[in-house]
């Protein structure tokens, strides 16, 4: 009797221990590394998926990517329509990149975002891009220089931006944050095609500005660089200082070690204004002039020039955004909401108007930490 009892238990446990119901092997998954969203002439979505081809990788060969195109009336529909061409179901758990064409971005990206966030597979830290002057799908067709997968390359490039500060990492959750939060507009990275060594490659080329969920326009890399100072996203990069006086071009590179930005909202005499103060620590990385900038006077002169030039760059981007787009991508309104909630409550309905003429004062503070290995400029003898 007892034996029978044990036997029954064993059988029940065997049934329970078979694990998952809808069990899928890795080779039955089609891993999507990234995808691009375009529109066809008849208003349908055209999706281009970059798929990591695992069949090729079974040996020692490199992992390759394959492109699959698919059309549909909605995004989900287009994704499922790919089954007609490619057997295993697409798996979005490892997707790192979504490229949106300008046309879709102009219509509003809310539907793209909604789909990505609602589905359980994609992660909130995948990166969003807007393709500039090209179809989004074409970006995925470009040649990759160092790895095999375009999406992976784009993600790596974005990660490496900490040494350049000319693009900002914008994962989906940050974009949603900007979309929903008060007094801040969203941005995405823009990507374009460039010819390098006679081959087409994908390249980051600045930032796409959004107002609500609608695309407004692009700003270029230099402007993105200034923008990242305001958004306090600078972790490295170069400040180029023009020290040339006269016909000769003389430039000095300062490498940024650390930078921090404080934005302070001010409310005085019923007028709103913003104070931005930027503290940057740099080292002299390259001296392109013959002058000595390591002694006290030289350093002071250099700092003064650098501060002025940086300030100018930042001021011009703020003005451009205010005048051309009127979208508060800096989050100035958000600063009022956080720091002066009472003022924000009164003014929030007029914010769009206020922002266009908002007075922004910028203070730049640059400190030279050291001058690298050299203590004197290289002096030429005769």
């Amino acid at each position, binding site marked *: 009797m007892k034996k029978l009892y044990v036997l029954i238990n064993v059988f029940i446990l065997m049934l*329970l221990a078979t694990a*998952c*119901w*809808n069990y899928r092997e890795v080779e039955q998954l089609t891993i999507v590394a990234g995808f691009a969203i375009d529109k066809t002439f008849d208003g349908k979505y055209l999706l281009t998926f970059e798929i990591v081809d695992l069949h090729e990788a079974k040996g020692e060969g490199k992992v390759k990517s394959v492109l699959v195109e698919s059309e549909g009336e909605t995004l989900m529909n287009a994704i499922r329509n790919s089954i007609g061409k490619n057997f295993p179901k697409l798996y979005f758990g490892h997707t790192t990149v979504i490229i949106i064409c300008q046309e879709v971005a102009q219509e509003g990206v809310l539907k793209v975002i909604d789909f990505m*966030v609602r589905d*359980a597979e994609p*992660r*909130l*830290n995948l990166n969003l891009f807007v393709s500039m002057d090209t179809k989004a799908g074409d970006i995925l067709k470009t040649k990759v220089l160092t790895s095999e997968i375009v999406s992976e390359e784009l993600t790596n490039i974005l990660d490496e931006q900490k040494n350049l500060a000319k693009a900002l990492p914008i994962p989906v*959750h940050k974009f*949603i*944050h900007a*979309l*929903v*939060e008060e007094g801040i507009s969203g941005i995405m990275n823009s990507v374009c095609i460039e010819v390098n060594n006679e081959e087409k490659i994908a390249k980051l080329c600045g930032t796409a500005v959004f107002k609500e969920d609608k695309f407004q326009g692009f700003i270029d890399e230099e402007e993105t660089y200034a923008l990242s100072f305001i958004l306090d996203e600078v972790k490295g990069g170069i400040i180029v200082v023009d020290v040339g006086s006269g016909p000769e071009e003389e430039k000095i590179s300062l490498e940024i070690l650390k930078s921090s930005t404080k934005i302070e909202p001010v409310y005085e005499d019923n007028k709103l204004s913003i104070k931005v103060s930027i503290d940057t620590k740099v080292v002299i990385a390259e001296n392109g002039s013959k002058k000595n900038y390591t002694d006290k006077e030289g350093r002071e002169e250099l700092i003064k020039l650098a501060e002025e030039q940086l300030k100018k760059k930042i001021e011009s981007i703020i003005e451009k955004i205010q005048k051309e787009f009127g979208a508060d991508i800096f989050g100035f309104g958000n600063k009022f*909401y*956080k*720091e002066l*909630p009472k003022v*924000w*409550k009164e003014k929030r309905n007029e914010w769009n108007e206020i922002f266009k003429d908002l007075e922004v004062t910028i203070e730049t503070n640059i400190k030279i930490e050291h001058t690298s290995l050299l203590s004197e400029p290289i002096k030429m003898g005769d």
Partner: protein
Amino acid sequence: MNNGGSVLLEKEVISQKQAIIIVATFIIGSSTILGSGAKAKQDVWLAIIIAMLMVSLIFFVYGRITKLFPGKNIYEILDFLFGKVFGKILSLTFLLYAFSLGALVVRDFTEFARIVSLPETPACIFALSFIVIVIWAVRGGIELLGRFLAIFFPLFILMIVAITVLSIPLFNFDNLKPFLYDGIKPVLIDSFNIFTFPYAEVVVFLCLMGSLRKGSSVYKVYYASLLIAGTTLIIIAVRSVLVLGIPNKMIQNFASFTSTRLIRLGTFLQRIEASIAIIFMISGFAKTAVCLYTATKGLAHLFNIKVYHRLASSVGILMALYSIIMHENTAKMIEWTKKIYPYYAIPYQIIIPIIVWIIAEIKTRMSNKNNTTKVEDEGTGDTANTALPESNNS
């Protein structure tokens, strides 16, 4: 399982430490995945603290009821206070509350597993396989649950701490600003919601506290577990706000799960959100087990069955089935939990305990008076029993 009736009929005893752990895990329960603070937004921490203060008042009532009748469970107390017929009716409502609460937790578990990882598996598979383990635990008695949690609770806390520490690089303290933007009202509404779910659900422990080992204080159990669970819940809620920010947190069904998904340390430590599922499995298991225990015990009491263990499987399976049919879909479930549940819970969490408490005070006072005039020994013994812990806690 056939250890003979004699063992089962013995009175179950749990130590104070075990009781604290059980109550704390029970409170943390499904709040590990279901976010709180829909209205209070960035002031959710304040709402939780206010809820804790409100709850500490009602916990005094719960503690006092048990203290007045040492060694008795709520059903015996109801019988004693309201007589056979009315007492039984109240017992029935109370056990139905425990039953539906248990079903709700099973449903939370099912929905979570279905949405997050296994969308094609039928709901009944989750519910039934989950309830089998819970039934097993309840058949083993409440001591078994105590011993189980004594092992897993440290692990449980460790995992929550680890996830929190790993999230620190993602923290953005600006997300907690501005403070009280919409005034105090939404915070108070939310603190009431948090009061009913999960804190005051502890009312089902009125059935268990009779098993507390002699010499341990009920108040200590309630307040220590409130402190442990409250801190944990504040950490979980604030972590989601700090990592996701209000805009993202508000649209997520399972905010703490989503915020864990963002954790990424280099390329080697990422995708650790399964740990949230493990945490929820432990706390959900404990919560369901307590609910099932209370419901089973109530049913056994209702029909004068001495060995409640045998009812556990039938009540448990009913609980699992009810969990499947109680809501049409997740959207309805979450809407119901947010909007209707607080009002549904008031009678069980506040009204019945307070009525029981008042009548209990009156009845014991009266019988004490009678006792002191008739038999002095018993009377003094009783008052000493009831008076002591009060002076300890005040």
